[in-house]
C-alpha cells in the first residue's frame, strides 16, 4: 500500500454520515406506505358505509355501526356465533380461569417491577382471553353454534398445537443416528412448497369418498355415500388437516436445526449417567430449543390467523358458515360490496391477532428466551 488515497471530503463523507438513516429508511418508508397508510385508510372504511352511485361510489360515515352489526346485530350469528346456555361445569372452569388470572396479576403487582404499560397490557390480555374463553364455552356446548371468530381460533390454537407436537416428534426421531436422514429431511420439507390453493384441491381429491384413492376403505365401512363436507366438525377437521400438512414441515425444519445445535456433551454425559430419554429431553433438549421453538410457534401463530385459501377452496366456507375463517368472512363481505363490514371484520381479526400474538411474544417468548440464555 504505497499509494495513500486522499479521503474525499464532501459528498462521499456526508453520505457515510447518513448511512445509519439510509440503512433503515427503505424499510420504514415501505412499511409506512404499504402497511400503516392502508391500515388508517381501512380504519376509515370500517367506520363508513360504501354505496355505489351513478358514476362512482360514495362513502358515508356511520360511526361504529359496522362493528355493532357484527357484535350484536344482524351479523352476530356469522361473526360471534349463536350463543348457548352455560352448563354448571363450564361455570366452574370459567371461574377457575378467572381465579388463576387474578393470581397471575397479583403476582405481577407483588413483583416490584410494576409499570403503567405493563399493567395495561396484562389487563388487556386477561380481559380478551377471558372473553374469548367464555365465548368458546358459550358457542361450543351443543346448544350454540360457532361463528367465524371461533372457527378461526379453532384453526389457530388446535392447528398450531397439533402441528407443533407432530413436528417436534418427527424432529426428535430424525435427529437420531438413522439411515436415509437426507431423504427424510427432503421429503418432509416438500409440502410447504405446494401452493395452498393446490393443497386444497389435492385434499378435495384425496378426501373424495367415492372416487378418491381411499374409496375402497370407505366403502368397506359402508361410508361411500357419506359426505364429510356436510358435517360441520368433519369439514373443519379436514381444513385443519390440510393446513397442518402444509405447515408441519416449517416447524419440523426449525426444530430439527435447533435440536441438532444442542450441546452434545451434556447429552452424552447424561446418557453415561444412565438418564432415560424422557429426562434427557425434559432437562437438556427442551430448555436448549425453547427459545427457537417459541419464535417458530409465534411465526406460525401469526400466519395461522390469516388462513383463507384452504377453507375457501376446500369447503367454500360451508356447510353453511361452519368452516369460514375471519379472513374468508371479510372476503365474502367484500364480494357482496359490504366494504365497511369487510373492513370491520378485518379490524376485529387484527385486534384479536395482535392481542394474542403480543401476549405470546411478551409472556411466553421472552420468558423462554431468558431461560434459554
Amino acid at each position, binding site marked *: 500500500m504505497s499509494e495513500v488515497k486522499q479521503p474525499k471530503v464532501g459528498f462521499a463523507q456526508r453520505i457515510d454520515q447518513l448511512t445509519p438513516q439510509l440503512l*433503515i429508511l427503505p424499510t420504514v418508508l415501505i*412499511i409506512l406506505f404499504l402497511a400503516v397508510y392502508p*391500515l388508517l385508510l381501512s380504519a376509515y372504511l370500517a367506520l363508513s358505509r360504501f354505496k355505489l352511485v351513478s358514476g362512482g361510489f360514495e362513502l358515508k*360515515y356511520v360511526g361504529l355501526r359496522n362493528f355493532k352489526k357484527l357484535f350484536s346485530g344482524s351479523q352476530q350469528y356469522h361473526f360471534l356465533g349463536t350463543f348457548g346456555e352455560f352448563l354448571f361445569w363450564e361455570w366452574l372452569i370459567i371461574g377457575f380461569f378467572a381465579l388463576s388470572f387474578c393470581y397471575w396479576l397479583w403476582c405481577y403487582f407483588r413483583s416490584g417491577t410494576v409499570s403503567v404499560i405493563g399493567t395495561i397490557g396484562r389487563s388487556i390480555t386477561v380481559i380478551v382471553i377471558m372473553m374469548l374463553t367464555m365465548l368458546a364455552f358459550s358457542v361450543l356446548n351443543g346448544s350454540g353454534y360457532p361463528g367465524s371468530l371461533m372457527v378461526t381460533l379453532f384453526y389457530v390454537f388446535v392447528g398450531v398445537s397439533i402441528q407443533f407436537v407432530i413436528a417436534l416428534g418427527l424432529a426428535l426421531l430424525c435427529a437420531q443416528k438413522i439411515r436415509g436422514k437426507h431423504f427424510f429431511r427432503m421429503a418432509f420439507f416438500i409440502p410447504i412448497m405446494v401452493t395452498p390453493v*393446490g*393443497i386444497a384441491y389435492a385434499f378435495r381429491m384425496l378426501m373424495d369418498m367415492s372416487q378418491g384413492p*381411499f374409496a375402497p376403505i370407505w366403502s368397506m365401512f359402508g361410508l361411500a355415500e357419506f359426505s364429510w363436507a356436510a358435517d360441520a366438525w368433519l369439514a373443519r377437521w379436514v381444513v385443519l388437516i390440510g393446513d397442518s400438512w402444509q405447515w408441519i414441515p416449517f416447524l419440523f425444519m426449525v426444530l430439527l436445526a435447533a435440536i441438532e445445535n444442542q450441546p452434545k456433551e451434556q447429552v452424552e454425559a447424561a446418557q453415561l449417567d444412565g438418564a432415560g430419554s424422557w429426562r434427557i429431553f425434559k432437562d437438556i433438549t427442551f430448555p436448549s430449543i425453547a427459545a427457537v421453538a417459541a419464535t417458530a410457534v409465534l411465526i406460525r401463530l401469526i400466519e395461522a390467523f390469516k388462513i*383463507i385459501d384452504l377453507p375457501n377452496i376446500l369447503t367454500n366456507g360451508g356447510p353453511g358458515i361452519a368452516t369460514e375463517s375471519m379472513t374468508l368472512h371479510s372476503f365474502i363481505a367484500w364480494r357482496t360490496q359490504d366494504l365497511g363490514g369487510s373492513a370491520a371484520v378485518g379490524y376485529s381479526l387484527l385486534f384479536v391477532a395482535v392481542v394474542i400474538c403480543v401476549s405470546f411474544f411478551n409472556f411466553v417468548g421472552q420468558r423462554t428466551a431468558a431461560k434459554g440464555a
Partner: protein
Amino acid sequence: MSLATRSLWQRISEPKNLQSMSPLNKVFTYSILFVWSFVVLFPLYWLFVTSFKLPIHVSDGPYYIPFIDFEPSLHAWKYIFIDLGQDTLRPYLNSIIIASISTVLAVFIGSMSAYALTRIEYKPKLGSIIGFIGAVGLVVYLTVAIGMQWQLSLSIGAALFVIFVLSFSRHFSRTLGNNDILFWIISQRIMPPVVSVLPIYIMFQQLGLLDTHFALIVTYMAVNLPIAVWLMRDFFAKIPVELEESAMLDGASRMRVFLTIYLPLAKPGLAATTMLILILSWNEYLLALFLSTVDAQTMPLMVAAQNATRGPQWWYMSVLIVVMIIPVLIAAGFIGKLINKGQLAGAVKG
C-alpha cells in the same frame, strides 16, 4: 452386564452401546418415519398420477398405478402447454418474475435494516412519531372524506408534519429504542392482508398501476419485509462485533462493512430467509386475487381458475400444481446447498 444375563426384553429395549439405537427404538423410529413419508408423498403422487388421467379415469373411481390400472394420457399436459400455450406461460413467467424480484428486494432491504438495528443505536422521538401519525391521518381524512386530490392532500400533510417537527418536537424528549422499532416492524406482519388489501387496491388504482408486475412486486416485498428483518437480525447478532470494529478502524465505511463482512458471514441465514420468503410469495393467493386480473396473473390464480362452471378440472389442475412445485424444488436444491456449505465454512473457521 454381560450379554448372557440380558433378558429378552432388555435385549430389544436397550441399546448395545451409546452410539447405537435399541432394536425396539429402531423399529419404532423407522415405522413412524415411513408412515409420515407416505403421508407427505402420497398426495403428491396422487397429483402426479391424476395429471395423466382422462376424465373418465377420475370419475370412474380410483385408479392407482399408470400402465397397470389405466392407460396414461398426455391430454392434460397437451391442453395446458400447447392449447393454452401463451395463457399458461404468461402466469408462469409472471410468478417467476414477481416472486424472485420481490424476494431478493425484501431480503436485501430487510438485511440492511436488520444489520442497522443490531449495530447502530436509533433514538426516534416519540413526539415526531405521534406527529407523523397525525399527519397521515389528516391525509387520509382529506382524501377520503373531503374528496381532495391525493397529490394536494399529501403535500399538505407533509408540510404540516415538517412544521410540527421543527417547532414542537423538542418539547417531547421521550425517545424509543431499537427494540421498539424492531417490534413495530414485526408487528406489521401480524396485520392480516385482508385489512390492508383494499386500500392498497385503491392506491394502485389511483396510480394506474393495477394488474402490473410493479404493484405485485412492491406489495409482496412489503408484506415479507418484516419476516426478513426479524430472521436476519438473529443471524447478524451472532457475528462478533470485533470484526466490524477492526474493519472500521481500517477505514471501511458502514455500507462496506455490511456488504463485505456481514452479508457473506450470514450466508446460511440469508439462504434460509430467502427460501421462506420465496415460498411465501410464490404461493401467495389473496393479494394476487385483488391486484391482478390478466397481465400480471400469477400461478395460484391460474390453478384456482381451473374450477370451471363444468366442475373442477382435476387433470388440468394437477398438471399446473405439479409444474408449480418444480421451480421451488430447484431453488430449494440450490439454496439448501448454500446452507450446508455455509455451516461447514463456519465450523471450519471455528
